[in-house]
């Protein structure tokens, strides 16, 4: 087991280095740099000497390999550096948005779990009946609907409904309020993006619950449980569901990791200032440091989640451990 863990940790390093190389050189192929954008981006005349000075200050004139070494070493000693666009530390820029992204991710996960597990179970137990078809259509639709469009529809629906009921159209507030200051205002803003992304997310989890449960229901020990006269409810809840939740937990974990940085489009619709928006801004501003830091964080979360999931599997299922 220790050998397995050590091997898996060692295998994470090349992936991280590969991602570092990819993002570093990809960003530098993009024409223009942050200094040109900052000084001449508005179309005004900018003194070439000033641009040169800015590049010198940001270290953009160093040899490319020196820049790369700085970036990789910085990442390993956990010093992310400063944003090239705002000049503030990257940890500060992240801190501003992290709370919001984390909260939306948690809320969306909550929505997904309460929808998906009951629906997945019903669908599997009633396999090939009309209930199963309805649930499957509902979940496939969740994957098919673009969550940004669902977001637009939610806002539109709110406007129309509030207009009809109270006469005054109401929209979710745009200004972010911490849940510790005013929980009501916070939820009024964030519940909608959580529902829009949670539906999509639940669709993936419902399908996973259904297929995992169907597989478990064919196992011999389920037949044994039924043969000894156990109530069908107990067979499903105690014997089958527990053993089928593993892949569901996996998919929830992976989707959660994705939600942290992947809500670019949904944030756009709801005008949220989260990590996804920061991501797009940093690339558009040619803010190398910030983009690199964000990409490395996302890749790191992805790699670590996969590692934990594999470890979890190996721990629960000895057949994987020894193969």
């Amino acid at each position: 087991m220790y050998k397995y863990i050590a091997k898996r940790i060692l295998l994470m390093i090349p992936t991280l280095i590969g991602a570092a190389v990819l993002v570093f050189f990809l960003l530098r192929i993009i024409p223009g740099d942050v200094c040109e954008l900052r000084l001449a981006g508005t179309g005004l005349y900018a003194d070439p000497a000033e641009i040169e000075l800015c590049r010198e200050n940001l270290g953009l004139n160093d040899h490319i390999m020196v820049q790369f070494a700085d970036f990789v070493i910085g990442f390993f000693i956990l010093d992310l550096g400063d944003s090239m666009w705002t000049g503030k530390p990257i940890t500060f820029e992240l801190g501003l948005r992290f709370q919001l992204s984390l909260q939306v991710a948690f809320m969306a996960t909550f929505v997904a779990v309460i929808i998906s597990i009951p629906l997945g179970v019903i669908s599997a137990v009633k396999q090939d009946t009309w209930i199963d078809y309805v649930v499957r259509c509902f979940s496939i639709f969740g994957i098919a609907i673009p969550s940004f469009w669902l977001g637009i529809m939610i806002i539109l629906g709110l406007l129309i409904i509030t207009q009809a009921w109270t006469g005054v159209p109401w929209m979710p507030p745009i200004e972010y309020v911490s849940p510790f200051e005013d929980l009501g205002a916070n939820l009024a803003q964030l519940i909608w993006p959580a529902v829009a992304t949670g539906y999509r997310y639940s669709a993936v989890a419902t399908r996973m619950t259904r297929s995992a449960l169907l597989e478990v229901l064919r196992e011999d020990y389920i037949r044994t449980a039924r043969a000894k006269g156990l109530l069908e409810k107990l067979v499903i809840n105690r014997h089958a569901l527990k053993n089928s939740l593993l892949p569901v937990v996996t998919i929830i974990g992976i989707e959660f990791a994705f939600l942290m940085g992947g809500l670019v489009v949904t944030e756009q619709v709801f005008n949220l200032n989260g990590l996804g928006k920061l991501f797009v801004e940093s690339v558009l501003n040619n803010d190398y440091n910030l983009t690199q830091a964000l990409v490395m964080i996302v890749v790191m979360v992805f790699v670590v989640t996969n590692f934990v999931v594999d470890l979890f599997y190996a721990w629960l299922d000895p057949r994987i451990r020894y193969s």
Partner: protein
Amino acid sequence: MAVVTESIVEGKLEAPSEDKTWGEMAMKMTRKYPLGAFGAVIVVVMIFLAIFANVISPYDPEANAFEFMLTAPDGQFWMGTDQFGRDILTRIIYGSRTALFVGFSCAIIGASVGLVLGVGSAYFGGRFDLFFQRVMDVFMAFPLIIMALAVVSIFGTGTQNVIIAITIPFIPRCARVVRSSALAIREIPYVDAARALGFTHSRIILRHMVPNVMAPFLIMLTAFVGQAILLEASLSYLGLGVQEPTPAWGLMLQGGAEEYAESAPWVAIWPGVAISLAVFGFNLFGDALRDALDPKLRQQ
């Protein structure tokens, strides 16, 4: 016992399947996979609309007509018009061309490259496989939106570059699935036999191994079409994808859907319905295909 006899009877009935016509086979599949058949109908309708767009559509998809700006749906414009006075129904019909073109290009290129790489990786094994898997890991972990932004910043926006941006992350996903199937196939004696006969590596990979991993390949391919349509819509919505005046569903939502959402909701509603239905159709079809092709998941 009842189950066994039933399946035997079914087996007898299915035996002379060569004599069946296409229609009969379609009927059988419809009975077995009603949802899949429904998905297939949506896909066929969409392909039909895309091919005959210029015959079916009532108006020109790109010509502005400001005198009809933001007209509500009526007898003349069934889905209303957008802020340039263009008929939304027409643009949705033409938009299916863009969606299908991007969807199929990304799926076919991504899945095919992934197929060859996945089988090759399993066939050669050893260090090559280990190295190759790490490269695939990097591309799987790399955020799609950054890839898309980088492709767009380097090559510019446009349909072709959207296809590049979407195809890149598809390759490792397909390669990984295909590789795990190919690993099992490599152990089957006929591969050794082919090697012993002195066939070249490329011949063994392409002629002997690739045909045997067609099931996971086709499953990935159909899943990719729906995903690609959805990703293209998202990228176009962000302004990183297909550009005006080309009719594309995601772009129609970007154009002014939010600004006019309250006064002209039809601008925001119809393109989203089109995207959802198209992806829904491909996913239903893909699910049925997976059930039919994957013996492990085949319903008993």
